[in-house]
């Protein structure tokens, strides 16, 4: 039986999801995902001709509010949760790979 998802597709999806897997992890994940996608495919047994999709079951529709900024006065506490901060800013590594400057 043909694979429902190949190792290459798993790697492609991992790229979209900003995840990376080692070869050993891929060996384990690929057949697991394949089995689960097999479970997904049982949905083809259900006749959904003319059926609307449901993506929301709330009884509230088109709730509007004013778009007003609020100052929560919490910037210090927020920055305490940042992995790296300096002088009120969140610090991140250089965006451009330093090796590319060579």
């Amino acid at each position, binding site marked *: 039986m043909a694979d429902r998802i190949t190792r290459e597709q798993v790697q492609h999806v991992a790229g979209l999801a900003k*995840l990376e897997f080692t070869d050993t992890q891929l060996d384990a994940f690929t057949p697991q995902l394949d089995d*689960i996608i097999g*479970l997904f495919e049982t*949905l083809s047994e259900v006749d959904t001709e003319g059926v609307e*999709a449901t*993506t929301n079951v*709330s009884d509230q529709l088109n709730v509007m509010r004013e778009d007003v900024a609020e100052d929560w006065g919490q910037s210090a506490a927020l920055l305490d949760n940042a*992995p790296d901060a300096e002088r009120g800013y969140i610090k991140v590594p250089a965006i451009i790979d330093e090796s590319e400057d060579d």
Partner: protein
Amino acid sequence: MNYFDKDLASLHDDLVNKKMSVRELTQETFANVKATDPKIGAFLTLNEDAALKQADAIDAEGVAADDPLAGIAIGVKDNIVTKGLKTTASSKILANFTPVYDATVVEKLTAAKTITIGKTNMDEFAMGGSTETSAFQTTKNAWDQTKVPGGSSGGSAAAVASGQVPVAFGSDTGGSIRQPSSFNGIVGMKPTYGRVSRWGLIAFGSSLDQIGPMTRTVKDNATVLSAIAGHDKHDLTSSDKAVPDFAAGLNEGTSVKGMRIGLPKEFLAEGVDDDVRNAILAAADTYRQLGATVDEVSLPHNKYGVAAYYIIASSEASSNLQRFDGIRYGYRAQDVKNLEDVYVKSRSEGFGDEVKRRIMLGTFSLSAGFYDAYFLKAAKVRTVIMNDFKAVLKDHDFIMGPVAPTPAFGLGDELMDPITMYMNDVLTIPVNLAGLPGLAVPAGFSNNLPVGMQLIGRPFDEGTLYKAGYAFEQNTDFHSQLPKLGGQN
């Protein structure tokens, strides 16, 4: 003092009449948690200093007769944010995260003067049915410490069942309140979608998630739901329907006489343990003796719920969990060369395997070329499943069945096989897909492990479920049997 078997009303009376102070109750609660938790593992973080301060403040004012929750100890699942109190969702990626605001539910509970004892263990990001995907610790079933507590709200369930707290909060995306309640012999409500604000609940599947109470009795549960429900301007899917005083209708006069109950044949089908099936059939007889009619009904598409759910919930999760990128908060990988590295390595090192599996499934289901066949198909099957429920609930007051096909399974038994784990949710998932309320009530035992019954109602009709659960409780003694942990229990 042993308050293990006291309900909220009698604890409240003791506090009002100053038979004990809130400080005494709170201190006793922490002493009991510290004595029992090495065996159970329900709590990740304790809130002792702040809790005692709060207790003293309540004692200074005195507990008023119309403040039914004042001074009551609660546990809060660790995916519900608590200002200044570490909140991890049991994930390494949030191991050091301290929220800067309270979830609306927590805000309402603070206004009701409850005392937060601590944060309870759970499956990582609520993904799992045994609390074993937690990055931090294993929680054990209150009845048998070789068994799982269920999940994902396993810490909250075990905390209530073992007498650590009379009330704990869970969240339920596909059964995460009801299944652990069933596995631990307690009462758990998954409210109608929109009944309770999701503001401050770390999002998993936004069209499915609901916060709800887990308690030892139906009436306690009803009291607490009234306190946390209602519209919230911060969650625009929360309903503006009036919130009834659910507990007010529960008394000697509460009856199911004349009610029509649907028992779906699919809920007792293959895969459901004999003991579970027999407990539900016995419960149906109890309802008949109490004057209700129980009809066999059909939810023909129930079996497709698991597949539809794992597409929809994983898709929503893959989107919701994009925010964990190592930049603003949470875990950031070291030894990174560029920004892409920060994202990929922080996420790959910070998330556990089950979370990665769900993100992968969701990303796949939403990706170009697969969206129509997977996500859109699942969203249409969701409509079909909703219509099945609508048809039955048109002429039945509620639906009854088991919560889970089996009692609690052994620690480590299902973790290795995702599909076995996913199929365990076959009876709870459809209720989330349809946005309906579902109540888990103790209904029997199998080899000394609790078996739960699930009552499913019309949208916003939690009141009928509480009445039916209460009537059942008054005529059975399953809820009054308690696990033996040694010590004061």
